[in-house]
């Protein structure tokens, strides 16, 4: 963490061959399988992909928040330091100022016995220190920023007294409280209505612009992703399938899976991708999308294609 | 023992200030004096009454009071005040309820005359009880309630915490030898371990009634004098004569022979106790020294049982008669610590001669209730013999046929006309030597009939800090003689 920036080549985050596995009764779950990722200072990447493909696990691994018993390998270099090998204390410093996380489905992630506003203020104090009243003031401002109506009055309410969307916004406020260098946002707008979503997205954008922070945004909302992010990555069954500039990847994806995903809700009628994602305990040998792929053929079923030119597909030269 | 204060700790605490309801605490502590006192042999000696005479019809008692005795409030002791004190005792207390007292008169300041409806020799002993001690009128308020006990004793009552503590000061105007310590604090410490610890820590100068196991280590420390005082209490087993097997005198005798009394003293009481031969311990004037008691003779016991028809037919170690095993219920209570282990050893000892003893250890009230209903075969109790320091009191209750048939703590369903007659005779006999003969006879008869098995006598263990002198426990526990105790300067 204290490494000079020069050594990191301007890379804020560099994930190398990260693998996360869970032992489970049905076999080992390979939730993240050799994922590499690079994020420069201030870069915003979105991570899209099939539900259950390992996005959240990847994000949790970055902050080392996975439950005990998880098998982790690979490297997560944050500001040049391998987060996975940091001491607990140094890791705390990273979490306090370096990385912030917005959790998906945040109801369980808020402590039910503390006022929501208080929990935001706590995040403020942990990252910046300062007096309680200053923290409270900032927490109130943050709640206002994330458009919690009557933030002042709601400061003292408990999470169960908030609506689903409000809880998500409290979560966002909490992550923003510490002005992180890297913001990991796991589905930050799923529970928000269009108008609020718009507001939150512009808020995120403003914040990131202002602080120059980088962002890893996991989302199913491609429009939001496109508006917020510079680069995009598509994940499938624990692996990266495609990476590249957000605009390109999200508008004209090259990987067949990304293409299919792109079209799924485009029209009036939903168009699901036929077939099912493979079980993570029992992954196919070759390309993981092959069973559902309309272009499948040749080596697809037997040889795992490498991530070549930002696309993991045999049919893509 | 700091600043001339003597700290005494015993297991029981003062529950009330009202001497007429319960006087033993203040008697023991020397707050009150009685008309008649009891000496160490349980003989009656003059106290506040210099002398007393009994009329020829044996119904009128005339006490001559000592002159120059002052109550703690400075007023002189007069026959009038004794009379009013006794009258209040009649009203509120229970001591005189069974005494056929007819009148109390005070013809002059130093003469007190008590009349009874019938000759009642034990009356003098009643006058030695704490409850009957004279109290100054200033002890009571207008509504006849106690304010504090104002007696004539060597110590003046100063203050108390109910059930916890009594504080006394020396009575400098005492008529007899004055106390040596200026102040006494008596504390009730129910737990023996605490008492011991307080003694060791110097919080107590005298710790009373300690468990025998503690003696060794106390003696080893060299800082304490251990006092062993035999007191007028006896551990004994009443046998239920209302039914089999103890309706048969041979079985009763067998029990008496099968019990190894020395083992009980050695192993249960750690040697602190005396084996019993008769009801009264030998230091008591009333004890019949000629009664030899039963030896430990299991062979004789077995023989008696066989004679009585109890034979072990099936070889299981338990005797049977007509197919019914020799099964007996031994009831006792845990409030007196030595009783349950005593019962256990007795159980084993009786087992050796072919009894099958079932032990029932229940809280004292329940035990008594069982005994009253005759649900027991043996009732193991610790019995105080000298609350009223006269044999009549206990013997009447425990062995006089109508009382014994009604149940109670003595010989259950015991009836011996000779004993009954002797008891009545003893009650009406005023000559001490003649009475002694009567009660000796009774003890011999009891030995013959064996309605009870007397096991052992109590010995109190008190520990006194080495530098404290002159402490003596009275065998009736009626006085601690604190007035003779001295502390180092």
């Amino acid at each position, binding site marked *: 963490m204290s490494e000079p920036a020069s050594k990191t080549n301007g890379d804020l985050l560099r994930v190398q061959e990260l693998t996360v596995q869970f032992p489970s009764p049905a076999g080992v779950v390979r939730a993240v399988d050799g994922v590499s990722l690079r994020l420069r200072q201030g870069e915003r990447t979105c991570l899209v992909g099939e539900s259950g493909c390992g996005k959240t696990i990847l994000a949790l691994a970055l902050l080392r928040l996975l439950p005990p018993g998880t098998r982790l390998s690979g490297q997560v270099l944050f500001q040049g330091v391998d987060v996975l090998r940091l001491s607990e204390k140094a890791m705390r410093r990273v979490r306090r100022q370096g990385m912030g996380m917005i959790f998906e489905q945040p109801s369980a992630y808020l402590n039910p016995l503390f006022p929501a506003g208080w929990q935001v203020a706590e995040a403020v104090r942990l990252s910046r220190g300062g007096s309680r009243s200053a923290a409270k003031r900032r927490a109130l401002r943050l709640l206002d920023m994330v458009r919690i109506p009557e933030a002042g009055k709601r400061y003292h309410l408990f999470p169960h007294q908030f609506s689903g969307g*409000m809880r998500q916004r409290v979560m966002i406020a909490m992550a923003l409280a510490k002005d992180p260098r890297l913001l990991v946002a796991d589905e930050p707008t799923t529970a928000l209505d269009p*108008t609020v979503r*718009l*507001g939150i997205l512009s808020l995120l954008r403003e914040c990131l612009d202002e602080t120059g922070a980088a962002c890893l945004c996991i989302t*199913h909302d491609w429009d939001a992703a*496109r508006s917020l992010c510079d680069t995009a990555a598509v994940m499938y069954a624990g692996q990266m399938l495609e990476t590249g500039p957000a605009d390109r990847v999200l508008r004209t994806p090259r990987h067949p899976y990304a293409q299919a995903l792109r079209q799924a809700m485009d029209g009036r009628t939903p168009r699901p991708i036929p077939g099912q994602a493979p079980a993570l305990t029992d992954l196919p040998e070759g390309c993981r999308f092959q069973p559902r792929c309309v272009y499948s053929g040749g080596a697809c079923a037997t040889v795992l294609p490498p991530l070549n030119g930002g696309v993991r597909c045999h049919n893509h030269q | 023992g700091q600043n001339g204060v003597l700290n005494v700790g015993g297991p029981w605490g003062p529950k009330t200030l009202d001497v007429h309801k319960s006087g033993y605490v203040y008697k023991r502590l020397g707050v009150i004096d009685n008309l008649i006192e009891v000496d160490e042999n349980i003989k009656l000696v003059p106290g506040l009454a210099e002398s007393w005479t009994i009329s020829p019809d044996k119904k009128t008692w005339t006490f001559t009071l000592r002159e120059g005795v002052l109550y703690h409030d400075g007023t002189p002791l007069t026959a009038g005040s004794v009379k009013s004190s006794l009258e209040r005792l009649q009203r509120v207390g229970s001591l005189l309820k069974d005494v056929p007292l007819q009148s109390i008169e005070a013809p002059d300041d130093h003469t007190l005359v008590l009349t009874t409806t019938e000759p009642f020799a034990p009356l003098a002993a009643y006058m030695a009880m704490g409850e009957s001690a004279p109290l100054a009128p200033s002890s009571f308020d207008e509504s006849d309630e106690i304010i504090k006990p104002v007696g004539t004793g060597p110590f003046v009552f100063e203050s108390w915490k109910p059930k916890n503590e009594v504080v006394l000061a020396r009575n400098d105007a005492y008529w007899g030898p004055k106390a040596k310590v200026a102040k006494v604090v008596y504390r009730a410490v129910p737990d023996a371990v605490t008492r011991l610890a307080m003694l060791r820590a110097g919080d107590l100068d005298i710790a009373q009634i300690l468990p025998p196991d503690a003696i060794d280590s106390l003696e080893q420390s060299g800082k304490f004098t251990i006092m062993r005082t035999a007191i007028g209490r006896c551990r004994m087993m009443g046998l239920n004569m209302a039914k089999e097997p103890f309706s048969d005198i041979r079985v009763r005798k067998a029990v008496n022979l099968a019990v190894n009394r020395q083992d009980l003293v050695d192993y249960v009481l750690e040697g602190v106790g005396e084996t019993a031969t008769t009801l009264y311990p030998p230091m008591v004037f009333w004890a019949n020294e000629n009664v030899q008691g039963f030896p430990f003779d299991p062979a004789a016991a077995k023989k008696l049982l066989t004679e009585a028809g109890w034979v072990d037919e099936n070889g299981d170690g338990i005797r049977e008669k007509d197919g019914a095993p020799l099964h007996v219920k031994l009831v006792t209570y845990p409030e007196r610590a030595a009783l349950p282990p005593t019962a256990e050893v007795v159980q084993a000892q009786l087992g050796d001669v072919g009894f099958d003893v079932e032990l029932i250890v229940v809280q004292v009230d329940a035990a008594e209730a069982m005994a009253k209903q005759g649900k027991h075969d043996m009732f193991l109790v610790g019995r105080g013999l000298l609350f009223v320091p006269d044999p009549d009191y206990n013997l009447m209750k425990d062995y006089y046929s109508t009382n014994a048939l009604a149940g109670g703590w003595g010989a259950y369903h015991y009836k011996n006309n000779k004993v009954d007659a002797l008891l009545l005779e003893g009650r009406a006999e005023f000559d001490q030597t003649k009475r002694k003969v009567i009660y000796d006879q009774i003890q011999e008869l009891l030995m013959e009939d064996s309605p009870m098995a007397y096991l052992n006598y109590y010995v109190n263990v008190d520990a006194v800090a080495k530098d404290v002198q002159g402490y003596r426990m009275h065998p009736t526990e009626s006085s601690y003689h604190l007035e003779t105790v001295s502390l180092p300067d």
Partner: protein
Amino acid sequence: MRYGRGHVRGADAGNRTGRPGSAHPQTSLRPGPAPGHGRQNAPAHSGAGPGPDRSARRLPVPAPLRLLRGGLCDRAATAERRSALPQPPVIQVDGVGKTFKAGLLRSHVTTAVRDVSLRIEPGKTLAVVGESGCGKTTLARLVAGLLRPDAGAVMFAGQTITAWPRKQLRRRLQMIFQDADGSLNPNLTAEELLLEPMRLHGSSRVQSRERLPEMLDMVGLTPDLLPRHPHEMSGGQRQRIGLARAMSLEPELVIADEPVASLDRSVQAQILSQLNEFQKRDGVAYLYISHDLATVRALADEVAVMLGGVFVETGPAEDVFRNPAHPYTRLLLDAVDEGIHAGARASGLENQAAANQAAANRGCPLASVCPLASANCTNALPSLVGFEPNRAVRCERVC
């Protein structure tokens, strides 16, 4: 204005695609019997997206779920019940309201739902869209009979919801919870969770286990998930478990509170087409709550736009989307996709949320930020006025 709009819509009506079973009674958002319009409001083609009509093209999705064929319920009886005339609406809600008091002294009063009425006919879908925190979940819980309303009444299949025997009600009315994470019993495995509803309603372990593959298929889950507990699943997997649970009983009404929010587009698509399939086949009615207008478009017959605890606009989905009447509806539609990139209108909404609560107690929830607002708007809540066949709006300025 009202008239003009109505005219436009009237002209439009003929273009709508008919739907099988269009003779079904109308879904209406107002209390009382439905108006006599027999036309069905299926989503029409719009310029955006080349996708063919869903009725025209079979989707390559797993075979529709036939969970209850195996005897869990008497299908014949159900069908009979459903075809009997006159058929009561599945759910009819009259003027329900709910107020929460919070804070140490219970001084923070939130009127989560105010005077909401709705009815859903069998086989129809009513979508509720609206601002986050406007009371949708609360409304859903009220309708599901999980929350006691302060005012108004909820009738399920013609009978007060509280009068229903528990088992029967829950067999026929199911709810999918917004909070997928919290609404799954953490002590159970996915398998137990999936079996739970069927087991509760009396089918045997073996019988219900047979259906597991079907259920997994329907929501696109793999069997390796079965032995896992909720905390060992991804957000989307949990949500799908919740969905499969609700659908497994083949209820008549499903109250779905953001059932697909945390799913990726392709799974969303799969699930929505499944839901449509069910509706077509079994005549399930949905109360569908979502923020995602694209999914609403795909599923809803009628839409209710909610703001500050009240319905501000109701009407056939197609009409409302094409021709929003209420200023808030317009804001909402503007905010979708294109708006993101333009950053448009975001600032216009700045204070909207803050204002909503204050106004909610007296006037129009939107009063303080509405470009059309007049003094009157802040003082009194306008009433829901019908202005076109089946449409109604709660705004004095537009109708």
